[in-house]
């Protein structure tokens, strides 16, 4: 399987993981990942077509609670730890790719979702290539 692990594949994986790697890092990880996958060849060689997968040690069921208001994290305390804040929200560089010389959004323009809207900030997950 490791013949698939070309530097191009590793560079693509780095892009999926939102990791800017140097050329030296790419070369290093191409070799090291191949060695780990080589070791996993014992698993790859097993015929497990009749074996169901185990994703978790517990038989997970939905855990529900009453939908009642309750105290949550203090908003100011949370925002105090953010790299950039504006208008009680997390401030980020622009998210659309239209050409602009301004590296940060104009003041007062909300560019990210509400603080609870975490998915929009995740670097992974929007890629169709992930499962």
């Amino acid at each position, binding site marked *: 399987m490791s013949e698939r692990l070309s530097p191009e594949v590793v560079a693509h994986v780095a892009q999926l993981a939102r990791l800017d790697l140097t050329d030296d890092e790419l070369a290093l990880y191409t070799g090291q990942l191949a060695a780990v996958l080589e*070791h996993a060849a014992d698993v790859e060689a097993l015929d497990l077509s009749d074996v169901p997968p185990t994703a978790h040690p517990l038989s997970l069921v939905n855990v529900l609670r009453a939908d009642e208001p309750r105290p949550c994290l203090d908003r100011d305390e949370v925002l105090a730890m953010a790299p950039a804040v504006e208008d009680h929200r997390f401030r980020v560089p622009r998210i659309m790719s239209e050409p602009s010389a301004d*590296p940060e959004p104009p003041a007062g323009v909300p560019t990210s979702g509400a603080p609870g809207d975490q998915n929009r900030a995740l670097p992974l997950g929007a890629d169709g290539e992930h499962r």
Partner: protein
Amino acid sequence: MTTAVELAAAVRTGTATARQVLEEHLGRIAVRDGELHAFNEVTGDAARVAADAVDARAGRGEDPGPLAGVPVALKDNLCTRGVPTTCSSKILAGWKPPYDATVVQRLAAAGAVVIGKTNLDEFAMGSSTENSAFGPTRNPHDPSRVPGGSSGGSAAAVAAGFAPLALGSDTGGSIRQPAALCGVVGVKPTYGLVSRYGLIAFASSLDQIGPFAASVEDAAVLLEVIAGHDPLDSTSLDRPAPELASQLGRGVAGLKVGLVTELTGEGIEPEVAERTRQAAAALEAAGAVVREVSVPSLTYGLSAYYLIAPAEASSNLARYDGVRYGLRATGAEDITQMYGATRAAGFGPEVKRRIMLGTYALSAGYYDAYYGKAQKVRTLIVRDFAAAYAEVDVLLSPTTPSVAFPLGAKTADPLSMYLNDVCTIPSNLAGHPAISVPFGTGASGLPVGVQLMAPALGEATMFRAAAAVEAAARHLTPVEVT
């Protein structure tokens, strides 16, 4: 050395104060932690306030709790409100959590005094604590050697007498392996027994918080304090905390113990294998029935783990993106550039390696061959354990293939480092409890640990066997390796 149980008794009955106990431990830290680097941060001032509060309660005739005045060191991936929690990563440097982990709240309620945050391999990824962004921790028994990892700071803190108790997290052996290498007791509880709320996630289906202690009894008392259902962790088991310490004296007469064939042969250093056989003989002498048991699929555990854990990590660590907390790279023109530059600057080499491995194992075209296959191997391991536990009550193996190795010995070859976890990984994959108990030293004079494993929620039986091994260890002679 005074045990945690003895210290708590002294504070509860007024023969010692929590403040005296704390100052004694802070003094030891001041003398030797410059050399060992067990702590990322010693929280002396906050600890003095907490200790004085315990003494005030005792002075009013109240009971401050089962860990009254006992200093506890916390692995620096456990959230402490207002106190920096770094995971030994530059990406979280300076971050102060807005909440306490559930285990931190339970420690405070039991009268324990948090003395500081301990060093770890960055985001708990490693087996030597050399992957810390803040420099390695050294083994108190030989500072030229590693303490193990990833909870190396917690293990070294207990071994050096900096704290009688510590907490770590164990994803593939990160409590038991450093406990073995530092000559202390380390416990990975049943998955779900201890709340993970406030434990910064590495691999969520494998992570579990557990105790370090200098004795089996101390570890049992600490686990009793931190165990139990927590509505804030949806994988927390809805059952009461087990009674462990009161069961230790029951002995092992008639207990069925299986020595694991696959974990005592090839790849295990002779001095460690010899000590493991001696532990089996000691259990037999104490009345247990010992036999060899084969658990064939354990040999695939390492490969499965190094696909599953990085896959979960690559997902969990997606949150470090420079948006809500921690480091943000400056100068990026858009958010995608900011993500890539922040993560490149904030993560160390091992974390990047695992994110890459996990992203690869989850990506289209490779998912079935790697991640899917590894999850099926997990099923095989669960089945083989079930077959073994139909025959025996607990399983015995070495905790690690070797004693502590020199700093730098394995850093250039990640795979050789990963092989340290071969004995400890299976219990994480199955969600079972396991404990490492010190059992003498090897030919080099360095500590050896043996591991006892039990089926889910088999802690009480596991601790009884551990107490018997601990008792036998007091009468050991130096190992003879032939």
